[in-house]
């Protein structure tokens, strides 16, 4: 476990050494900021609802971009050989990289605190849903990170890793919007699978253990799949 923290530290600082972090954070703030404030005055409501409505789709694009390099780059350069012959296990590697990505997402969310702060200047903001929304955003980010990490472990090509990650995250986001095509018997299962559905629940300010469990299990499945993908290279 100690080894995972060394990998975490190295990966997290690697984001800020290269321009990736700055580019991704800028794009994220631009997109969410624009869509939030473009309709904010039309609704004339002091809430972050439009910001949270959009967040899963934006995350589905941004997070695979954050995670795509984590393992692909190692496979491409061959540095996984150096890493895995040091006294670390595949589990340390996966966990270290996963938490680096989650920390990066938190760093990306911190500037968006300016939105609720701006809103409080203009009206009465209910902080309950805002806090719930941020907790949900971190959980959602972690789940998508795990998926992105798995995609990254599959290939040495970062673009392919990005597209696979994007496809899975996007499908999870939109799955509960496509329910009218499905037979009724499957509705329950598929609506439960939808990431957006669970995120919006939390963003209402209700932290239900079922929603938390959903994100935790997505994380677990994603990380375990990434672990297996990395091990299979041996």
């Amino acid at each position: 476990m100690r080894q995972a923290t060394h990998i975490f530290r190295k990966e997290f600082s690697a984001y800020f050494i290269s321009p990736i972090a700055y580019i991704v954070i800028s794009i994220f703030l631009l997109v969410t900021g624009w869509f939030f404030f473009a309709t904010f005055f039309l609704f004339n409501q002091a809430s972050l609802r439009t910001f949270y409505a959009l967040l899963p789709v934006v995350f589905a694009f941004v997070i695979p971009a954050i995670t795509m390099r984590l393992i692909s780059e190692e496979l491409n350069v061959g540095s996984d050989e150096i890493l895995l012959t040091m006294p670390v296990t595949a589990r340390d590697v996966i966990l270290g990289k996963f938490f680096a990505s989650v920390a990066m997402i938190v760093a990306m969310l911190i500037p968006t605190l300016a939105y609720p702060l701006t809103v409080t200047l203009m009206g009465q903001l209910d902080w309950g849903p805002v806090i719930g929304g941020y907790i949900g955003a971190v959980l959602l980010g972690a789940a998508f990170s795990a998926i992105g990490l798995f995609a990254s472990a599959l290939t040495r090509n970062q673009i392919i890793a990005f597209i696979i990650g994007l496809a899975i995250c996007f499908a999870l986001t939109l799955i509960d919007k496509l329910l009218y095509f499905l037979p009724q018997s499957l509705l329950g299962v598929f609506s439960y699978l939808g990431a957006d559905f669970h995120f919006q629940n939390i963003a209402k300010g209700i932290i239900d253990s079922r929603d938390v469990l959903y994100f935790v299990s997505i994380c677990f499945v994603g990380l375990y799949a990434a672990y297996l993908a990395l091990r299979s290279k041996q």
Partner: protein
Amino acid sequence: MILVENLTKYFHSLCAVDQINFDIQKGEILGLLGPNGAGKTTTLRMLTGYLRPSSGNIRIKDLSIDKDTLEIKKILGYLPESAPLYHDMLVFDYLNYVAAIRQINGKKKMSRIRHLADLCGINEVMHQPIGELSKGYKQRVGLAHAMMNDPEVLVLDEPTSGLDPNQIVEIRKIIKEIGKEKTIILSTHILSEAEATCDRIVIISQGKIVADGSAENLKQSTRGKNIMKLSVQNADFQTVHETLMGIKELDDVTRISETDGILSISLSYRSKADLRPKVYSKIKETNWVLLEFHQETQSLENIFRELTKEN
């Protein structure tokens, strides 16, 4: 120290390493030789725990690779082929990171990094990104990486490939220096290098061991052609050929060159006895001027080529 038993590795249906056995004593420098694709890198990767063997076992000290992988990694230092390091990191940051993973902390860390920087000669590039280094420096950083934990066993995969002759000499010097106390396994396809640095040579071809022993032993054990070369003046090839073919052990006399009246010829024979006295006494009977006369030692190149020929 290291015992490799029936080690086999399949990649799907392709057999990369086929039931190889060897052992390495403590303090030995072992050279793994072989043509491209012979299974050298695969063998080393299994030794270092990067690849899992399809079957067979590797024991290092009293640890077994499949059960005590982590413990083995702790006493091992490994430099993969062409030193694949993180391009974005500064050399110092990288060594710092490696030291952290190797659990070297505090004051010991700085002194260890400084010592390795001196040993590998990378002081002047400590604050450059690894991606910008020349191949030689990258290799040295890789070597510093491999020696961070003062490993008992050092595994080097083609440590001198892509280096210039000066750097090759330096790296060999470092290897020799470390090899006084440590067990080293290195792979190479440069034969002179194996001869110069290794105590023992294992030649593998198509995943199998075809020879194992010191360079001297290998040279003696293979019965190849012996070659003798001589240059004479005041003679023409026809008479030289006739005269020397009088020695019945000689197989062949061939002309290498004939310039300015100097005739260079090579004599080949298979007999184990030294033919030099016989050849000399033949020449003494004539009025040729003998300019050059030497027996070529069986070179490792010839042995290598003979052993690793397809089929």
